[in-house]
């Protein structure tokens, strides 16, 4: 809405996703309509079971919608994946313990068939992007949780995908580390101009990071509110004490509460 001229990156039209389980079908997503344009930072927020992770996985073609249409860069999610449209960051860093940090970051590059020279060049670029220069030779267990998660972000950035899909990447970290990584993520986003889809269950995190906040509610998983953030792109940590920030957070909270009353 705010940037009509921008290229549409993710487009969902009446997306529904039903899991067939032993206890019968479970509706994970229902009538999800959403448009994400290039360079946006979109957060998905909602209680567990609201389908925010399922939607992110559907974008990544890890799940497949059972109705509606979902396109990524104008392609089906499967085709977009083949075209290396996105990098995915999971809740846990998920680094392979038998690979060094460099080895982990090179993993997607090896699979995608980059030459050793190209691998080395990209490796040093993303290591400096996440400020892990000098840690390439370390094994994951030698790094703190926050550093491990930064390495996993570097891994997702290594092959130049335009979209970064992040599923509660800082959920397992303590608040101090999370604040730092939030700031770093914003800087990284500004520098790389990627489109970021970010799943979280923290209201401050969603408001602090996003240009667009998608509020979701459970049973069935659906979107209850989409908020275009008026906050400037440049965001120091203390922006969280501003009236604008508090107002948006309030609206998110109301959206979550409304969704809940509706569901139960």
């Amino acid at each position, binding site marked *: 809405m705010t940037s009509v001229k921008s290229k549409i990156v993710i487009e969902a039209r009446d997306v529904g996703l039903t899991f067939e389980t032993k206890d019968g079908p479970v509706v994970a997503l229902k009538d999800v309509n959403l448009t994400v344009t290039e360079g946006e930072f979109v957060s998905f927020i909602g209680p567990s079971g609201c389908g925010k992770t399922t939607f992110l996985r559907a974008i990544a073609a*890890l799940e497949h919608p059972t109705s509606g249409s979902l396109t990524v860069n104008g392609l089906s999610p499967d085709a977009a994946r083949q075209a290396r449209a996105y990098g995915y960051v999971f809740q846990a860093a998920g680094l*392979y313990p038998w690979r060094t940090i460099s080895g982990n970051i090179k993993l*997607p590059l090896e*699979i995608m068939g980059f030459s050793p020279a190209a691998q080395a060049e990209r490796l040093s670029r993303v290591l400096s992007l996440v400020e892990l220069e000098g840690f390439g030779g370390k094994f994951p267990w030698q790094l703190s949780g926050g550093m491990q998660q930064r390495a996993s972000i570097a891994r997702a950035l290594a092959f130049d995908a335009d979209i970064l899909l992040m599923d509660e990447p800082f959920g397992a970290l303590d608040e101090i580390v999370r604040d730092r990584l939030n700031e770093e993520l914003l800087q990284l986003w500004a520098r790389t101009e990627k489109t970021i889809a970010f799943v979280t269950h923290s209201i401050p995190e969603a408001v602090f990071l996003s240009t667009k906040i998608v509020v979701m509610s459970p049973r069935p998983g659906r979107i209850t509110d989409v908020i275009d953030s008026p906050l400037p792109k440049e965001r120091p940590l203390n922006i969280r004490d501003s009236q604008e920030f508090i107002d948006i957070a309030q609206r998110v909270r109301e959206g979550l509460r409304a969704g809940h009353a509706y569901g139960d």
Partner: protein
Amino acid sequence: MKSLGPILTVLMVIFAFWYLMAIKLNSQWEYDQAVRAKVEVGFWDILPNTMQQKKPVLPAPHQVLTGLWDGLAGQPITSKRSLVYHAWITLSGTIYGFVIGTAMGILLAVGIVYNRAMDLSVMPWAIASQMIPIIAIAPMLAVVVHALGASAIVTKAVISAYLSFFPVLVGMVKGLRAPEQMQIDLLHTYSASKTEILWKLRFPASVPFLFTSLQVGIAASLVGAIVGELNQPAGLGARLLQGTYHGLTVHIWAALIVASLLAAILVKTIQGFERITLVKMGMRK
């Protein structure tokens, strides 16, 4: 060095008990001899003899050690009387069978993890195969394999492999399935093929499981080789059986000790490889 005291104490208790049992078990023969020779003997007369009989019921520790030393160092190692010679024959069969068994275990595990039909069908048969006492099936297996024109070492290796594939199979199925769904999803987001998932994720993740299995597998392999040698002319198994035929208990005990030393060396070797590999892989600090 703190553990040296307790170890020596336990060793001394075992040796003391061993000597007492040797005296008790071997004295009957001495008394019988005396009756036959029509002489009266007391306990102290026969005591020295109970520890130096040629075919004692239970040889005393020093007799076994002498026999062991004679077998290991008292012969040219190419002699058929040398324990080194027999141990070498058993070792080659063990390694041969261990390699085949390990390969079989890994291949079957990959099949089970990647193929639903194999997942449902292989394991019950694998478990059933281990339910049959090896001593019952080994001679038949040996006859069949030999009839197919296989050499002595292949016959042994088949029995070794039969015993050693199982721990490798069980460990590798668990190891290949060790990666979490998230780690597999990660590779899916790179559009990795099944083969790439196997090489980049499942195999590396299974290495600690593999080494645990290999330690059990190599010991099982050695047992298999010894059992497989019971109807062969050479090897520790053959030596054990010959000892039984001729009542050469010293030979039996010496061969048993060589077999257990061999097992200890093999397991320690695997543990050495394990340590080096895991340190290299960053999985042990």
